[in-house]
């Protein structure tokens, strides 16, 4: 054992802490690993009991995810030999590819709606937070409380009025409607989070810019915004995660052209028996954008979560 130190934890403590982190990581990551591995199983392997840890990987799930298939007669199959590996894969089951599935469209809808509403929430949130932070807004505290109060019940509690509103405004099953809805839900979080960040930026920076000959708008863009990137990034992550994963409203308000991936993925299972690998493949791909986005911004996220905890 090294010398005892008042600030440095002992080796035993480090070891204990390390094991705790590993156990926690396993517990949280196992379901993810399970989904990812199921995506590469054959339908038979995916429902095998006892579950298979080791298996022959197959891309059948991914092929099923992106295509629609029909069963054909032996004769038809013999006359139309497969031209590439995925046609071969389908062919072996006695089926042919009838066309692409809707997964691509739904995924693209998710991207438009998720990122669109995130951008709008952060953009409006930053402006509102700046105004609340810097200007004398009449009834400021009441307004802020009112904004917060929109989060005091689960958003789905107002599903019926929103459904009726969307129907009469023609917003049902439109991208604009979903972007508006997610923005409305996220905006209160964005305003509060960002106000906290902007409050922490000393006023002197802007004042220095004003005196250096810049207008308030220039000072905002050139001095305040660069300072607020951490806050903006972590707010964007929170907003995106909500909009990306939202299920209930998406089921209720979209069915066709604006349907996002979450309500679509469960429907994959209905095509030709219990196709768990296809569902898992859809879920795996669906995880990727948020994961990439979060990894890109994780430096800011970590700083964002602990922001203001320590006086610099």
């Amino acid at each position, binding site marked *: 054992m090294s010398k005892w130190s008042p600030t440095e934890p002992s080796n035993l403590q480090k070891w204990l802490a390390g094991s705790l982190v590993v156990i926690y990581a396993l517990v949280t990551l196992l379901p993810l690993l399970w989904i990812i591995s199921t995506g590469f199983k054959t339908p038979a392997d995916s429902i095998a009991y006892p579950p298979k840890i080791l298996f022959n990987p197959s891309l059948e799930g991914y092929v099923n995810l992106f295509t629609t298939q029909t069963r054909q007669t032996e004769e038809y199959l013999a006359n139309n030999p497969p031209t590439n590996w995925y046609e071969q894969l389908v062919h072996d089951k006695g089926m042919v590819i009838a066309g692409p599935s809707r997964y691509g469209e739904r995924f693209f809808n998710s991207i438009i709606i998720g990122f669109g509403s995130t951008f709008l929430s952060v953009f409006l949130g930053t402006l509102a937070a700046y105004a609340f932070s810097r200007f004398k807004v009449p009834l400021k505290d009441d307004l802020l409380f009112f904004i917060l109060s929109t989060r005091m019940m689960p958003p789905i509690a107002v599903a019926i009025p929103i459904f009726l509103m969307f129907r009469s405004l023609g917003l049902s099953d439109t991208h604009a409607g979903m972007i508006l809805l997610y923005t409305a839900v996220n905006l209160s979080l964005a305003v509060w989070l960002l106000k906290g960040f902007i409050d922490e930026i000393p006023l002197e920076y802007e*004042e220095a*810019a004003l005196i*250096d*000959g810049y207008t308030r708008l220039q000072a905002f863009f050139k001095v305040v915004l*660069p*300072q607020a990137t951490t806050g903006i990034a972590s707010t964007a992550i929170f907003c995106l995660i909500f909009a990306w994963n939202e299920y209930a409203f998406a089921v209720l308000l979209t069915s066709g052209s604006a349907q996002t991936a979450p309500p679509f993925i469960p429907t994959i299972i209905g095509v030709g028996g219990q196709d768990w690998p296809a569902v898992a493949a859809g879920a795996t791909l669906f995880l990727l954008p948020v994961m990439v986005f979060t990894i890109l911004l994780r430096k800011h996220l970590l700083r964002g979560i602990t922001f203001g905890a320590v006086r610099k």
Partner: protein
Amino acid sequence: MAEIIVRNLCKKFGDFVAVESSSFTVADGEFFMLLGPSGCGKTTTLRMIAGLELPTSGEILIEGEEVGQKPASQRDIAFVFQMFALYPHMNVRKNISYPLVSQGMRRAVVNQKVKDVARILGIEDILDRPVSGLSGGDRQRVALGRAIVREPKCFLMDEPLGALDAEFREHMSGELRDLHDRMGATTVYVTHDQREAMQMGDRIVVMNHGIIEQFGTPQEIYDYPATMFVADFIGSPPMNLLEFEGEIVAERDYLTLNGQRIGIPPLKESAHGLLVLGVRPEHVSLNDQSRFRGRVETTEYLGTTQIITLSTPNGNLKARLISSTLVREGEVVGLSFREDLITIFNKQTGKALKAIRKPGFSSNG
């Protein structure tokens, strides 16, 4: 460079009056101090001159032009903040050049100017460093660089040395004063530190509760305080204020305190009632002949001098004596005061009573 005229300037925050009808003139090229305790309105006054606050009423003229309601960006002034306010996402060079970029100046000219300023301030070697790693002194120099690079009409400084440690403050204040003397720029400097104000300022305005108590040269303010507040605020230790009930006849050069005749500068008008005699500690001396006596309570040794606290019938009094003077605690000694630098105050109004000064000095207030 420019003259700054402030006329009847007033600032209210709701019901709170931060600055009450202030008027003063800062001469061209002057190093002008706004001095006062925290919350006295000195920073608000400075921020109004800068355009960071709008005055409730009154006028501010910079170089003869009324700027009271103009935005800061159009006043052509430079401001040095207490916490420096360097742009944290830019390096030193960008910080200094930022005010020039806003004017759309050509890059080559900007570079040349930044170089010149860096040379003046001795920060050429840190131009490409980020500001976050700089020492307090270097940050201060960069902040000054950003101010002087524009060659503005005047400099406004809000306790620019407040964030530095004591030792370095001394050094920087010398550097600041040198810089001012070389550039001859009109400077308005806010501080709560009376020593800094005395040391650096050409003229000082002393403010309290949003009101200007006095303005004048450091010596005028030190020798002839216009109010009891100024007497008490300036000097370390401050002026002794001895209360007494009595009468002073106009143009008579003495008063009687506890049976002792004390010479004073003759007053222009008679006064009676509750009065206060103000005398600086260094103008008190021991005198066995005097019938105004005090008991030595404590002595503080300061090297060349010592501060002696005495209790007298008119309140405690501090005397600054040469260290070699032998005094024992508990001893009762006679005291005499330097006559020409005594100030008499009316306790009720807190104001100094006008005295007939010998030629060469002018009374102020």
